[in-house]
Structures are given as structure tokens and as C-alpha cells.
């Protein structure tokens, strides 16, 4: 490790690795650090990603990254009413079910291939701040302290998002803006090539349960509960809901991995400061409806990497110059995030009966565009009275 870099990227998930790759490709001296000793592990993800979305960032998809392909999705309302979608119409979170351990490590290696220095088991414990500018990081590598100077720090440190806080950006998630999740990689269960989603207050209050096929009688079976509900005494732990769900649906399955994690379902935070940018989950770019974060991490990472290249060329690392980054993500990631945030705010207020009613209104319908937009537009069309307020809120987005 050198003692000076142009850019230090903290966190080697898809967001950090793409930032490092784009910055290194643009000629910058880049350090990418990951606190875990193995990049990509432990997984904290259901691993679903849209095919089209992934190919936008990675035209060459390696077969090792893909556990299986999902060709459709089914949503079950609390009383079991099914809404089915076929692949060509399915939402952006249906497509590939990844093998994140391999995928994440390969992305970090791609950044190394572009010239970035990559270090695992390397934790950033503090930022070096001089005259109001982030000018470096302090941390530990293999237990040994180090300090590195730099012009820009990119916080790609995921749900925890501590780098932002160290720079004075409040990234704290309110209980209404986080889903707490538990998942098993199950084996010996009957699954097909569809992703299943189950809704209901007895299944996953304020969230949903999912089954994402991983091939060979395996699947990620998980669920997430809205933090707001977990504050109530009557609501159990996500792991308890998961055990109940598994008992009801896959009682003969075996548990090959236990996966835990928090999913931001928030509006984005401030993502820039003097000498700092936040990307991916750390910036709260996760989709508030689907909980998907991989593509938004890669998209924001690309934008941050490009902005870093421009800032180094201009030799200006002020928040004002880094506004370029916000100007890139606000009309793209930001707009979609805001729309889905409003949809989430509405859906978490619905009772099981209301969810059943909505599901019944569309279960016979052929929905031509089965994305979140398509589904919500069809729901509004079929339920103009019930969804009047939602429709008003979303007027400028649909």
C-alpha cells in the first residue's frame, strides 16, 4: 500500500468496485479497501438482478456469476391470490439470481485489472480532515494501523454507511426507512424458474417474503420486516417469521446458509461533501419497493468514478465541484427512487384485506409492462377510487 492515492474507495461491493474501476480506467491512482477478509462474503443479499440492467454495466456476463435464470415472477397476496408475470414483462429485479461471492470478487478484480490497488481485511476507522476537506483515511490492515493521504474518499460501505457519518453526513436510517431481513439458502426443495413473492402482515409486516431459485433444488428463501413494525411488542423477529414461513412452505428443506442484513428503503441522503462522495447502499440508493440495490450501486459508482476523474483533472475537490455527481444521479436514480419511495409509503399502510382486494383486481389481467411502474399503473387503472390518493401523488411519475 502506498501512502498517497488520488482516490480511496471504502467498500468492495458492486458500488465500490465499479467506482474504483471507472476511476482507475480514467487514469487515477486508486485504493480500494474491503474490511472483510473475503470480498463478497458473507453475503447479505437475495441476489436477484435484472438481466438487461446488469448487461448495461457488464456486457460480458460470466457464467460463474449466475446461479440461475428467473423467467418470471409470482406475487401472492395474504389470502393466496396470485398475480403472475412472464419474463419479458417482469420487473427489474427478475432475471439473474447471482452468486454474489464470485460476482463481487470478480468486480473487485476488474478494478485491480484497471490498475487499482485492492486490499481485503482492511478497515477504515477514521477520516483525515483538514480545513474542512477530507484528505485521507486512517485504518487497519491485517491488524496494523495505516494512514493514507488522498484527494477524494468514496464511501461505498453499504448499509452501515459509517464513512458518510465520519464526514458529517447523517446517514442514520429511521425505523420506517429500513427493512430488517433474514434468509436461508435452502436445498432439497421444489423450485421452478420463477421468483415468488409473498405479502401479508402474518408473513412479513411492512415487507415481503421471497423465493429466488438458485438452481439444483436450491433457493434463497428470505423475508424482510419493516423496522417500524419491529419496534412493536407484538411483532416477532425477522428470523422467527422466516422459520414460520419455511415450516409452512418448505418443511423438508435443509438450510445450507444463514444470511442476515438490513435493506435501506429510504430517500437518498446528501451524497457529497468536500473531498467525499457516497455511492450505492451507503447513499441509500436502494429501491424502496423491491429492495434491490446492486444496479443502483453500479450506476452511482459509475457516476462517482467519472466525477472523480473530472475533479482530479480540475484539481478541485470541493462540494461545489462534486455537485456534478448529484446532478447525474438526481434525474435518474433519484427520480425513480422518489417515485418508489412514495409507492412504498402508500403500500405499507395497507391491511391484508386491502392487499387481497388489489391482488384480486389484477389476477386475471394481462399486464403488458410488469415492472413496478407497470404493476402500479394497472392497479390504479383497476382501482381508481381506492387508489385515488396514490394516483395523485404519482401523477408526475407515471
Amino acid at each position, binding site marked *: 500500500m502506498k501512502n498517497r492515492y488520488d482516490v480511496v474507495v471504502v467498500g468492495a461491493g458492486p458500488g465500490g468496485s465499479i467506482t474504483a474501476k471507472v476511476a482507475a480506467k480514467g487514469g487515477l491512482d486508486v485504493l480500494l479497501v474491503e*474490511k*472483510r*477478509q473475503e470480498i463478497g462474503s*458473507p453475503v*447479505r443479499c437475495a441476489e436477484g438482478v435484472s438481466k438487461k440492467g446488469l448487461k448495461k454495466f457488464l456486457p460480458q456476463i460470466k457464467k460463474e456469476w449466475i446461479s440461475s435464470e428467473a423467467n418470471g415472477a409470482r406475487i401472492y397476496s395474504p389470502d393466496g391470490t396470485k398475480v403472475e408475470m412472464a419474463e419479458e414483462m417482469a420487473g427489474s429485479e427478475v432475471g439473474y439470481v447471482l452468486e454474489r461471492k464470485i460476482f463481487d470478487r470478480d468486480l473487485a478484480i476488474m478494478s485491480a485489472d484497471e490498475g487499482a490497488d485492492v486490499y481485503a*481485511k482492511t*478497515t477504515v476507522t477514521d477520516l483525515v480532515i483538514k480545513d474542512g476537506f477530507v484528505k485521507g483515511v486512517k485504518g487497519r490492515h491485517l491488524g496494523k494501523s495505516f494512514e493514507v493521504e488522498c484527494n477524494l474518499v468514496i464511501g461505498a460501505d*453499504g*448499509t*452501515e*454507511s*459509517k464513512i458518510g*457519518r465520519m464526514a458529517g453526513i447523517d*446517514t*442514520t*436510517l*429511521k*425505523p420506517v426507512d*429500513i427493512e*430488517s*431481513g*433474514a434468509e436461508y439458502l435452502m436445498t432439497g426443495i421444489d423450485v421452478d424458474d420463477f421468483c415468488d413473492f409473498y405479502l401479508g402482515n402474518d408473513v412479513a409486516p411492512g415487507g415481503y417474503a421471497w423465493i429466488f431459485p438458485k438452481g439444483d433444488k436450491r433457493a434463497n428463501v428470505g423475508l424482510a420486516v419493516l*423496522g417500524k413494525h*419491529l*419496534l412493536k411488542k407484538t411483532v416477532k*423477529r*425477522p*428470523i422467527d417469521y422466516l422459520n414460520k414461513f419455511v415450516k409452512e412452505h418448505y418443511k423438508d428443506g435443509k438450510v445450507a446458509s*444463514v*444470511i*442476515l*442484513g*438490513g435493506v*435501506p428503503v429510504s430517500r437518498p441522503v446528501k451524497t457529497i461533501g468536500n473531498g467525499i462522495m457516497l455511492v450505492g447502499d451507503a447513499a441509500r440508493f436502494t429501491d424502496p419497493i423491491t429492495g434491490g440495490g446492486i444496479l443502483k450501486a453500479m450506476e452511482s459508482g459509475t457516476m462517482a468514478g467519472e466525477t472523480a476523474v473530472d475533479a482530479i483533472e480540475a484539481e478541485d475537490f470541493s462540494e461545489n465541484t462534486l455537485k456534478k455527481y448529484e446532478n447525474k444521479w438526481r434525474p435518474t436514480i433519484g427520480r425513480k427512487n422518489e417515485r418508489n419511495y412514495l409507492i412504498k409509503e402508500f403500500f405499507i399502510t395497507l391491511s391484508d384485506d386491502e392487499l387481497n382486494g388489489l391482488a384480486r383486481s389484477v389476477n386475471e389481467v394481462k399486464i403488458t409492462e410488469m415492472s413496478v411502474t407497470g404493476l402500479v399503473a394497472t392497479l390504479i387503472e383497476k382501482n381508481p377510487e381506492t387508489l385515488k390518493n396514490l394516483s395523485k401523488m404519482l401523477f408526475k411519475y407515471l
Partner: protein
Amino acid sequence: MINVDRYKCGYCGTCVSVCPEAAIDLLETFININDSMCKACNICVKICPIGALEVPIDEE
């Protein structure tokens, strides 16, 4: 003070993201709560997907 059951904890960092005092760190395979910063709001205890954080009974 909040206890962490290290045998239960899956070091996922969900507690870190909700702590209003930034008193929790996820180090490589464990979480660390800075007792001098903790205001005992217990949001972390409730958010944990697996119930690895606990308020000691005599303080509840």
C-alpha cells in the same frame, strides 16, 4: 449498556445503520458498541433480524 450475543450475531450491520449516536461499529466479524456514546434508545435491539442484541434484564 447493551449486550451482544456473539454466538447469535450474524455481523450484518443492520444495527449500525439505525444507531442515532453512531455508537456501533461493524468490524470484520463482530460488532462493537461504544458504551460512552450509547444513549440506550434500544432501536438496535429491536431492529436486529436475529435478536443478538439485548438489554440486560436488570436495566429493562
